[in-house]
């Protein structure tokens, strides 16, 4: 048996170069950094856009040139009224995120932890999240009018479910062997909860928040486009009524950037706060 030729003082085995075993920092040190690919994608989009307008496939009246749009976007970015409306949108987004998390996370943790609650509540949750929040728009307008309250309430409805569900699943998916490990060290219920259940639910909760952050922005903007009286969405509709497609597209572009910034922001925070979640996903669990 030559394959088990092991001599006596056993030496440390080196970390295997498996995808799961390599530190993330080392993996990111590839020949082409990720952001370069991202940039290439955005550049391609602009080239296609330019070609579509230049060839006349879409008339410049419906879709302005990228350069013109960028100029307008630049103008909007230094326009105090526009920035105030951006702040309005973000404020509504923030309020919705805070309120939905404040209720969704603790409730999700509770429902996931007690198996007696889990099944009954999950049927309600799945029914609830199947209803698009836009279905509540008329009711929300009746109840709250056209102000921030209306936008926030719609967004809360939309993001409450993913936040709740991810907290529930996070607790539910706690590794039984980790609980057994804790118990073998003599830990009681409270210690198991704080030392095993909560940290293992954290990556899932973070995922819920990341999903919710995109959804909340979409819902807030939709409410603004459909009738709210403040926010970036109202700026876009105003320019639409003034027949200024260049400003409309500039607004859309900036909204896209805002969404992207939120997404990458959440990704970064997730990597810093719950790095083990990513490690687990990458090792195929």
């Amino acid at each position, binding site marked *: 048996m030559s394959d088990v030729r*092991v001599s006596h003082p056993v030496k440390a085995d080196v970390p295997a170069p498996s995808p799961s075993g390599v530190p993330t920092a080392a993996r990111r040190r590839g020949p082409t950094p990720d952001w370069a690919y991202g940039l290439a994608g955005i550049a391609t989009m602009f080239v296609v856009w330019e070609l579509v307008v230049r060839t006349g496939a879409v008339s410049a009246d419906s879709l302005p040139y990228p350069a013109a749009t960028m100029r307008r976007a630049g103008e909007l970015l230094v326009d105090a009224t526009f920035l105030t409306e951006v702040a309005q949108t973000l404020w509504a987004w923030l309020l919705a995120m805070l309120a939905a998390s404040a209720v969704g996370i603790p409730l999700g943790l509770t429902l996931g932890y007690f198996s007696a609650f889990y099944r009954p509540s999950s049927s309600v949750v799945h029914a609830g999240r199947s209803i698009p929040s836009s279905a509540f728009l008329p009711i929300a307008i009746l109840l709250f009018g056209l102000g921030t309250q209306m936008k926030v309430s719609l967004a809360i409805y939309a993001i409450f479910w993913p936040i709740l569900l991810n907290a529930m699943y996070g607790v539910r998916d706690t590794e039984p062997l980790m609980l057994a*490990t804790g118990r073998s060290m003599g830990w009681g219920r409270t*210690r198991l909860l704080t030392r095993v259940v909560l940290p293992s639910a954290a990556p899932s909760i973070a995922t819920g928040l990341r999903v919710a952050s995109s959804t909340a922005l979409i819902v807030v903007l939709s409410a603004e486009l459909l009738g709210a009286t403040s926010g970036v969405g109202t700026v876009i509709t105003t320019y639409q009524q003034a027949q200024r497609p260049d400003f409309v597209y500039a607004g859309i572009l900036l909204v896209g950037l805002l969404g992207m910034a939120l997404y990458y922001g959440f990704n970064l925070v997730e990597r810093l706060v719950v790095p*083990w979640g990513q*490690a687990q996903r990458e090792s195929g669990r």
Partner: protein
Amino acid sequence: MNPVTIQPHQPGPGTDTPMLAVQELGKSYPSRKGDVLAVRSIDFAVHAGQFVSVVGPSGCGKTTLMMCIAGLLPITTGNVMFRGERMSGPRDGVAVVFQDYSRSLFPWLTVEKNVALPLRDRGLPRTEIRDRVRESLEMVGLAHAAALHPWQLSGGMQQRVAIARGLAVRPEMLIMDEPFASVDAQTRASLEDLLLKVWAETGTTVLFVTHDIDEAVYLSDRVVVLSQGPSVVVEDLPVELDRPRDQIATKQTALFGELRENVYSLVMASQRRTSLSGDPH
């Protein structure tokens, strides 16, 4: 290699009292069709300082038995006695190492903090904890990895962290459930030798559950052979191979071959018996 100084544990109050006595242990699980018997009746004892392996065909309830002995599952019938006292749950002095290291180490903690976990809540001074953690990591050759996270290590290294965590409490008994079943053959051989070295240094009693017959014979003072589930003990075999053991030399001795064959035929026989007996369970 640094000499690691850990005092061997004192033998129990009466030297006749075994460290661990498993008495007519039975375990059944409730199911929709009534109770399912996993373990029928198991009897064996482990004396202080011994290295005892439990082997059996797959599905014989080894893991269930181990969880019962560790106090992690309630037993249905019989007793588990630790130093003559009835065990009713996990207790200090008994550390458990599971097969699946990737799911028993906490990924949110560094290696060092994982090893320190069982030392918390014991009112130990900070420096004492630090020393013990370093000592345990040195024993498994991982002092350099203290600041890394488990998911940054290879499988073999992760299992060594799990072993170090078990050793940190200076356990009287270490219960190991197929600890080397998910690593490759070479890593496995080196982990076996590492375990023998640590066992010799610490004098900890080891109860080692495995499905690997060679591994059981190579490591142990005694091999307890279980039948197919619902399991009973079919044989309790002393292993009188010289120590220290060697992966090549020990396995080439005639005695090793005999013992290996003996255990193998016992396991196979029990497997055949149950598959022919037509018991629906």
